[in-house]
């Protein structure tokens, strides 16, 4: 059944050949290696809806730790210039646990559960909930990822709860708007190299992701499309460049489209 579903999806997406699952806007069900440490710097430049000349800059330095083969932990710090100059607005802890895995040569199907605990001190300025740099709150979800040769397909479903932000910045919308459902669908494909010869070859992945959210109470939604390109250098450095924009846009955001640039460096057997 799974195979039929997957093949149908692949046909639907027009990708018969082979992709990868180190997604730019979402996390796959797979974890980083046990005892490895990764450093990430995610920068985004989002265009304001009210003033198209104005871009908000968010920067998120992140430390990632592979605790065991099944679990990993990220610590994130949120920096933004949305209100004034670039200041630290908060941080988050993200924990992921892989609870299911069926692997074959060049293939796998995996499932994981995750939770994110966020703290933010900025003013609450939009009804859409964003625990990656805007709201304080909790997000809990499940992820399923299928990898077949060079294509990886992944989907996630999550519940988000927005608490009041710190420094007296309350959640200014009605209390019943604090809950939302988040859902994503991601496809990645390995484009280069055509054949592997060494760890020093540059890998290039192309990704297309759909990122959605529906407010539990109001039913308002947004659904973004986010294409991206990824380079992996020396099998340990990652460079991601992406752009997201809304296709469905009922659930209001103050900045709803823009660029992402991420740098990541991984150290294996770090401890």
């Amino acid at each position, binding site marked *: 059944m799974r195979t039929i579903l997957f093949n149908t999806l692949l046909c639907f997406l027009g990708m018969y050949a082979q992709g990868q699952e180190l997604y730019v806007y979402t996390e796959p069900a797979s974890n980083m*290696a*046990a005892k490895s440490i990764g450093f990430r710097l995610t920068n985004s430049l989002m265009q304001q809806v009210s003033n198209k000349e104005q871009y908000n800059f968010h920067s998120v330095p992140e430390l990632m730790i592979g605790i065991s083969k099944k679990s990993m932990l990220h610590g994130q710090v949120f920096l933004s210039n949305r209100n004034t100059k670039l200041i630290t607005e908060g941080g988050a802890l993200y924990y992921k646990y892989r609870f299911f*895995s069926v692997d*074959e*040569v060049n293939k*796998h199907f995996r499932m994981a559960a995750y939770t994110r605990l966020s703290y933010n001190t900025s003013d609450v300025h939009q009804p859409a909930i964003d625990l990656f740099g805007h709201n304080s709150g909790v997000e809990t979800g499940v992820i399923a990822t299928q990898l077949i040769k060079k294509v990886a397909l992944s989907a996630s479903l999550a519940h988000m709860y927005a608490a009041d932000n710190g420094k007296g910045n309350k959640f200014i919308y009605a209390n019943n708007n604090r809950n939302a459902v988040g859902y994503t669908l991601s496809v990645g494909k390995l484009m280069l190299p055509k054949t592997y010869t060494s760890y020093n070859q540059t890998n290039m992945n192309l990704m297309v992701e759909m990122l959605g959210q529906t407010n539990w109470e109001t039913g308002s939604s947004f659904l973004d499309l986010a294409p991206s390109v990824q380079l992996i250098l020396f099998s340990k450095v990652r460079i991601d460049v992406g752009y997201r924009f809304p296709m469905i846009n009922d659930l209001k955001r103050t900045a709803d489209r823009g660029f992402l640039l991420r740098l990541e460096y991984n150290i*294996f057997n770090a401890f």
Partner: protein
Amino acid sequence: MKKLFFIIAVLMAANGQAQITKVSLQASGLTCSMCSNAINKSLKSLDNVEKVMSNISTSTFEISFKNNAAVNFDELKKKVEDAGFFVSKLTADVFFNNVKLLKDEHLPFAGMNLHFLNGKEQTLNGVQQIQVLDKGYVSSKIYKKNSSLTPMDCYKTGVAAACCASSGMIAGSRMYHVTLL
């Protein structure tokens, strides 16, 4: 060097021993070079490993060991799993010296216990290749298929059970089920 080898061989001949010279393993669940590198680095972190030669496109790793270092298959498997993947095939090149092979016999071997699931009754000499057939060393399909090769309980658990008592194995000790290639 040849002399040293000869001396080792003579020493081992005394009680029909064996030495693992090389292990080749294939990992499952990956296609990307960063994933392969994670396994490569993980295997290299073992003290007894001298060198790992990897082939990214076939997900295979050829591991050579430091002189006379004891090799433990479970340790290698754990390193692959720590990197987030699984072992789908593991073969070892073994230098045998006057080792008697009997089907379903248990053989103390290079610090490990082996249970040969197939092979004619014979005396092994020189370098031979064996494949580990235990759970987690082959795909689950092949593991199930191989269960017809032996009626013995130790295949299911990977540890010596009542079935192994005749060979003098202590119940509960690790038993690798292998086949001669």
